[in-house]
């Protein structure tokens, strides 16, 4: 079902029309088979890139589309509803471009952004490590001064697009222990010493490759540094504020898709001589699902509008990520229930949505970490 969206401009309506056409013709038809086979749909990202969708919320002068974050998130949601691996891939790519766009020098923005946003390239964001997930500031990957550049050693874990990305936005330690010793570096693919682990064998979202990124004496020029030395953790967290809204939009997309599947099925399926949709016990479940999806969408849009207005939005972003992904888990689980036995088998997409939902409660800050962020923000003196 087409979601009714209050969009701020005619331009945004035109954009969403284009996105729906692409989602319907190029994304959704491939999802089930390629997920089952665990194939990464690089060609779909090329199609999105050619359509100008890989740089939406960035300024036009650097090759972006100059769209509001709010509008960009609608796009992420639509694509995630068709195929999470694509919606989340777009979100991670957009996140990976943020440090250069927001903290890079004018020279870095000019030399790097047009290609990063132009549609040909795909980015990855490298923060987590095997031993440091939630406690990201404990990361150990080291970048040491070497001549007029850096030499980097370490292992990044769980990296979305690891091995298939064209550039890696990397957090590495250049100084003391803790958050103040971390810096952000731009690493193009193909450098000597850069290698990748085998793709993780995941419960869902199998078409989105997740792999370790290994750095073994990787040499970077001095201007690979984004922002100042020691500023990396702040940059990483600022990036994640926006990234979390991308995850929230993905969650709403998957939940909407599950809801649509459940509603469609409940209208058709007959038991005891009537449509199962006509049993109040079932229709109340559908009503709750629909209400939660709508509320989750409203919350991420509220946070995005604060961001677009230049207001503080980090706490709202954490709330949106927490609420939308929990809603997604609940709604997709209920969708399986609505389909009964048919929900549990691969002939219908409900089970896939349920497997996809789970990862969203984990990435870009687990939902425990979101609660921690929100709790701290609302109780600090």
């Amino acid at each position, binding site marked *: 079902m087409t979601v009714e969206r209050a969009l701020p401009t005619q*331009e945004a309506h*035109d*954009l969403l029309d*284009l996105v729906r*056409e*692409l989602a319907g013709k*190029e994304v959704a038809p491939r999802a089930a088979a390629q997920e089952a086979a665990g194939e990464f749909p690089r060609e779909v990202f090329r*199609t999105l890139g*050619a*359509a*100008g*969708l890989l740089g*939406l919320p960035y300024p036009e002068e650097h090759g972006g*589309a100059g769209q509001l974050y709010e509008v960009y998130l609608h796009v992420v949601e639509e694509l995630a509803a068709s195929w999470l691996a694509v919606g989340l891939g777009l979100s991670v790519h957009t996140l990976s471009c943020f440090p250069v766009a927001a903290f890079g020098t004018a020279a870095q923005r000019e030399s790097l952004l047009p290609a990063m946003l132009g549609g040909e390239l795909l980015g990855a964001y490298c923060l987590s490590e095997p031993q440091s997930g939630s406690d990201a500031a404990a990361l150990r990957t080291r970048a040491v001064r070497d001549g007029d550049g850096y030499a980097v050693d370490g292992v990044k874990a769980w990296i979305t697009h690891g091995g298939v990305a064209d550039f890696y936005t990397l957090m590495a330690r250049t100084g003391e222990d803790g958050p103040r010793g971390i810096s952000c570096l731009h690493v193009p693919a193909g450098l000597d010493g850069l290698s990748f682990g085998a793709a993780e064998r995941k419960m869902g979202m199998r078409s989105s490759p997740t792999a370790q990124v290994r750095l073994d004496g990787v040499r970077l020029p001095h201007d690979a540094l984004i922002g100042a030395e020691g500023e990396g953790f702040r940059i990483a967290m600022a990036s994640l504020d926006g990234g979390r809204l991308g995850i929230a939009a993905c969650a709403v997309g998957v939940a909407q898709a599950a809801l649509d599947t459940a509603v469609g099925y409940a209208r058709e399926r007959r038991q005891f001589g009537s449509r199962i949709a006509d049993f109040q016990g079932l229709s109340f479940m559908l009503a709750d699902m629909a209400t939660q999806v709508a509320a989750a969408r409203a919350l991420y849009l509220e946070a995005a509008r604060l961001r677009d207005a230049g207001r503080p939005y980090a706490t709202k972003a954490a709330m949106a990520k927490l609420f939308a992904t929990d809603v997604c888990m609940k709604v997709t689980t209920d969708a399986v229930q609505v389909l009964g036995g048919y929900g549990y088998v691969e002939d219908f997409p409900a089970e896939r949505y349920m497997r996809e939902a789970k990862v969203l409660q984990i990435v870009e800050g687990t939902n425990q970490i979101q609660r921690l962020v929100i709790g701290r923000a609302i109780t600090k003196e």
Partner: protein
Amino acid sequence: MNIVVCVKQVPDTATERKLRSDDKTLDREAADGVVNELDEYAVEEALRLKEAHGGEVTVLTMGPDKAADTIRKALAMGADKAVHVTDEALHGSDALSTSYAMAQTLKKIGFDLVILGSESTDARTGVLAAMLAERLGVPQLTLANKVDVAGSSITIQRVTDYGFDRVEATLPAVVSVVEKINEPRYPSFKGIMAAKKKPVAKFGLAEAEIAADQVGLGGAWSEVAEFAAAPPRAAGTVVKDEGDGGAKTAEFLAAKKFI
């Protein structure tokens, strides 16, 4: 090369299509209008020829105001400008009078090559390319699944029942293309934005020097005398297998002359 690509807005084949009871013409208001699918291939071919040989692509549409959406789509794909022939007096034109109106317009705007889809999904007469070529006095190269231009000569592969014919002519000429000649591109977001600023000239009867008595319902050579709704699909026949299912199925198929 000055390429004119003709596109038509047709009712979406996914929605229910109806004829109007008053004048027995297609009810274009009732259905969603979309670009005739084959015309997207024509636009794509025009854009590829322009990319290879330079020049300009002009979109030509005849239809009510609503057809402006179709023009925008072709412009968003990359065409440079458009001519929209629209006039109340054109309402009800048949294929012959449409070809007259389009030919008059083409004479006005000039062209080296006219490209069309081989038919439209609404009326499906599939004759417009031939009629246009006759009226313009230029060669017609129809049903192309491949188009090559070299200097002023044009060669196509014309799809036939037995394979294809190679057809050659000199420009100016009219070409109609079939499905699968190419893979039409999606417009890009930037293309959509840019399309809003591209020039669209509106031509009425006067601008295109179209004689009013040759077009519209009055000027049409064909007439819809009567029409009826298609009968609802009959319920299927269920063959119950009581050991003789195969024989019964064969009997049914034989009765329908399938076997």
